[in-house]
């Protein structure tokens, strides 16, 4: 899972303490997935249990440091080498909603699509604004990823509208 591997990836750059991992994780993902400090420590103790990280003493201020192990490095390489499966995503509520709107005789499909399109464009505008303000490359690329996804949804909605309109015209 991504938090586990995100932490391993950060530790590859050298030993770090819990709070530092949280800050760096959020910075490099443009705060897209906020972490609470509890999640960081829970994840660290599981990684330690699995032999992927090991305690590495304390810094001059007494904060407990963690380091990646050799097993951890192997696991991280495996993760980077493995593509993310499309089927790992949760059920798509929007696809279900559009399908139900098209199947139902008394639903204004165009209106459903337009409402969604307006909302998706707001998201896209907010992401673009965040991208303009972002100064790190990693942050910008994470935001670009979200922008491409929102754009794909927008294109799919246009496609749904065109196809359902054409099919309606054919049937009348």
């Amino acid at each position: 899972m991504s938090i586990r591997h995100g932490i391993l990836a950060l530790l590859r750059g050298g030993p770090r303490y819990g709070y530092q991992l949280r800050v760096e994780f959020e910075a490099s993902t443009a705060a897209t997935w906020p972490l609470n400090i509890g999640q960081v420590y829970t994840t660290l103790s599981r990684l330690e249990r699995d032999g992927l990280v090991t305690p590495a003493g304390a810094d001059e201020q007494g904060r407990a440091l963690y380091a990646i192990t050799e097993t951890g490095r192997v696991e991280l390489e495996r993760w980077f080498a493995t593509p993310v499966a499309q089927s790992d995503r949760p059920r798509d509520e929007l696809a279900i909603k559009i399908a139900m709107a098209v199947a139902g005789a008394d639903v204004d499909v165009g209106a459903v699509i337009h409402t969604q399109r307006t909302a998706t464009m707001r998201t896209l505008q907010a992401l673009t604004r965040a991208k303009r303000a972002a100064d790190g490359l990693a942050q910008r690329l994470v935001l670009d990823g979200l922008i491409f996804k929102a754009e794909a949804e927008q294109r799919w909605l246009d496609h749904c509208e065109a196809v359902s309109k054409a099919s309606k015209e054919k049937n009348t």
Partner: protein
Amino acid sequence: MTVVRLREVTREHGQVRALRGVSLEVSAGELVAVMGPSGSGKSTLLNLAGGLDRPTSGNVEIEGRDLAGVPDLAALRRRSVGYVFQDLNLIPSLTAAENVMLPRELDGVRSRQARTEAMTALAEAGAEEIAGRFPEELSGGQRQRVAIARALAGERRLLLADEPTGALDTATGDEILRLLRSRCDDAGAAVLLVTHEPRYAAWADRVVYLRDGLIAESGSVRLESAR
């Protein structure tokens, strides 16, 4: 300040009603994107907003002047309106700087003055170093930078862009939108952008959707606290 205003504009081509009553305003410093499927009237809207075409009914004002009362639309276009298209933008036998100077010189501005304005516009568009190059020596993104400089050289404050990112990859397309955005934010230009790509429309303050010659209701997506 409103730079361009369309009021209940219709445009018929024979039996075809390309626009069926569209009202739209773009203010100084504002970037407005127009989206819609092919045949929805996007290009007709842009041509009317820039005085390249006249409406069948309704009116169009540029900087407070009703275009119906302007006998020489070409002169008004040269002074007030800049265009950027997907391609066919630059004259191949002229350098980047000469391309930017041309509309100003046609308008009677002296060559030295036109060159000074061109260099300023090119610098603002991040294209200062390529001023002496010919279009064929430039990348697609650089050509669009020059086209944007030309569109805004002199006193022009209205820029009409028809798919300006059409032939560009997404990273270069983003740079062009960043430039258009900065011309709005820093120079107070008004930009009306036609695009079919949501990622570029998202740079706008407002996005309007055209459907069958009408602006789709509730479709005006205004970016909260844009400025």
